[in-house]
């Protein structure tokens, strides 16, 4: 069996966080080169500060400044740093108990070599030169017992931006694969459920109604009926087609389920449920394993399909 087709899928967004009074104070102080914890109902000083007490669940409010030096309580060596990690050279992730704190903070230690790391090692904050009010204002910790740089003044922080980027390899399923390879040849491959005889385009690994593999492969024509549609007038982040455009459910002749595609060649106000349409393919040299080989659908000029012919597909 050939390896199923795959393609990169990158999902990323710059999420924002409104901090509220506790985390806002913590990050404002980091920007000022100070580390601030909070005292819990049992007297323990939590660093980073907790918004609510883990014992009583009450809101906490007694901030406590702790030292910029502390001790390693546990660590793990990272020989090959990954994208987004604090350092681009080998480093240690460490649980660090700052002097004056009762809990540990997870951060990086720039130790150079695992031989120099030890539980019980003394470390101090290395402040980033350009601080914005983020946990990364602590560039990392370094092996030293000397105090870090003195505090400075800086504006209050109420929001942070936390970019999240995920890099996937999206693989087609074994069922999808022949469908996509068919598209590369300009063919529309569907599958029929052996139990209920419904024809799925695109095909599925199993019939959602009967739960059995849809093994019977059939080829469909590139003509069909618009069952229903939406005129998209609204622009939005990540949109690939400039609005306005008609996003239409197309029921190919011989299929039992419609799919969404783009409808052009007709003014949006003239599109109708039941309109007969045909595929407009991109030039063959642009074809790939994708439904985008069909650039769009356009009216075929045939009379509209009667409502009863597609009313079971709405």
């Amino acid at each position, binding site marked *: 069996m050939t390896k199923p*087709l795959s*393609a990169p*899928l990158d*999902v990323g*967004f710059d*999420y*924002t*966080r*409104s901090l*509220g*009074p*506790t985390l806002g104070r913590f990050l404002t102080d980091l920007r000022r080169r100070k580390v601030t914890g909070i005292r819990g109902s049992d007297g323990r000083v939590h660093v980073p500060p*907790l*918004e*609510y*007490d*883990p*014992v009583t*669940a009450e*809101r906490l409010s007694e901030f406590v400044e702790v030292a910029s030096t502390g001790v390693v309580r546990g660590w793990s060596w990272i020989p090959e740093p990954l994208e987004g990690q604090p350092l681009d050279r080998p480093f240690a992730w460490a649980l660090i108990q700052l002097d004056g704190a009762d809990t540990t903070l997870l951060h990086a230690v720039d130790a150079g070599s695992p031989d120099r790391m030890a539980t019980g090692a003394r470390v101090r904050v290395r402040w980033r030169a350009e601080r914005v009010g983020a946990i990364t204002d602590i560039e990392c910790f370094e092996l030293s017992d000397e105090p870090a740089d003195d505090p400075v003044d800086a504006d209050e922080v*109420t*929001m942070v931006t*936390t970019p*999240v980027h995920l890099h996937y390899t*999206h693989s*087609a399923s074994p069922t999808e694969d022949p469908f*996509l390879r068919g598209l590369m040849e300009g063919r529309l491959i569907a599958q029929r*459920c052996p139990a209920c005889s*419904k024809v*799925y385009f695109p095909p599925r690994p199993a*019939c959602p*109604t009967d739960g059995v593999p849809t093994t019977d492969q059939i080829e469909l024509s590139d003509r069909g009926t618009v069952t*229903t*549609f*939406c*005129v*998209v*007038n*609204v622009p*939005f*982040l*990540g*949109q*690939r*087609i400039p609005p306005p*455009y008609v*996003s239409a*459910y197309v029921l190919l002749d011989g299929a039992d*389920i419609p799919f*969404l*595609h*783009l409808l052009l060649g007709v003014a*949006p106000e003239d599109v109708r*449920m039941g309109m007969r349409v045909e595929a407009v393919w991109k030039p063959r040299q642009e074809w790939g394993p*994708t*439904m*985008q080989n069909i650039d769009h659908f356009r009216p075929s000029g045939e009379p509209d399909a009667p409502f009863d012919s597609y*009313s079971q*597909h*709405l």
Partner: protein
Amino acid sequence: MRPAAVVGTGQTHHAAKRLDVSMAGLCREAIDRAMADAGVDWQDIDAVVLGKAPDLFEGVMMPELFLADALGAVGKPLLRVHTAGSVGGSTGNVAASLVQSGVHNRVLAVAFEKQSESNAMWALSVPTPFTMPVHAGAGGYFAPHVRAYIRRAGAPEHVGAMVAAKDRRNGALNPYAHLKQPDITVESVRASTMLWDPIRYDETCPSSDGACAVVISSEPTSGRAAWIRATAMRTEPTTFAGRDQVNPQAGRDAARALWKQAGITDPLSEVDAAEIYVPFSWFEPMWLENLGFTDIGQGWKLTEAGETEIGGRLPVNPSGGVLSSNPIGASGLLRFAEAAMQVMGTAGDHQVDGARVALGHAYGGGSQFFAMWVVGSETP
């Protein structure tokens, strides 16, 4: 199954951006109000159930873990419920089942969304390789099905605008609502921009930050109680050949089970108020039919006759509903809580006079998850 009741409700002031609080602070605003309403303290709570819509909406994987302190869940069972937009409703039902089953005496149900931290339209339109990038968020998904409803029911075009105007006016009576538009009219709704034809701007829910919490108990704690007479949840796949997207089977089945369990034979006569998940105006008549309040194709007539307004035969969304506040994960629990408030008589300016039986309803995904409950003022 032993009786269970909502004994306290709480919600945040919903807004486009609640930049004054963290996610934890947002949840606590609702929780503190619910616990004060119920007259209970943390030691009275046996377990916590949290609901929230897809994690991509805030970009926080499993927020229930870092929220455990804020939810008062340390040392207690903490469950996360996840059924897309219906999750708030499912959260209420899961919490109810923990009490009804006798596992716990008092359970705190919490649901939230902080939409301002991300962009739900982006999160719902991630372009998958090999597909045609015609998706356009929730509005783009639902608009074709709304069009199909209008065609099938032969509904006049202004009914959607009537729903929107009613819900926004109701929202103006609700101190917690995100949108308060007392002067909105059917004409102004119809004059608003067409976003996803046939859905207009004013017929679309806002994007909100907000949270909701309820305390569910085996016995009254504050004197007030909304007794849970029935709960139902049903699910179906997003797409399959012959699927009815206008009137989904899962919704019909859930409603039938709900009315049977509640001992209700004629919902339109026996239910005094309904909080129904209506993120786009036309879903009011669609769900009136799906829920069995009217026959198929007749839902819009109830709306058009003004019977779904406060003072009508079946007030729908007296709180202003999802069209007035939409912190997605919390929206379902808000429906459930508002139904409870109606029968507890705590709904304030949007109280339906003499409400004794109320429906809370939520749906999610591509109309594939349904959760609902019926609450009543009468002790079982």
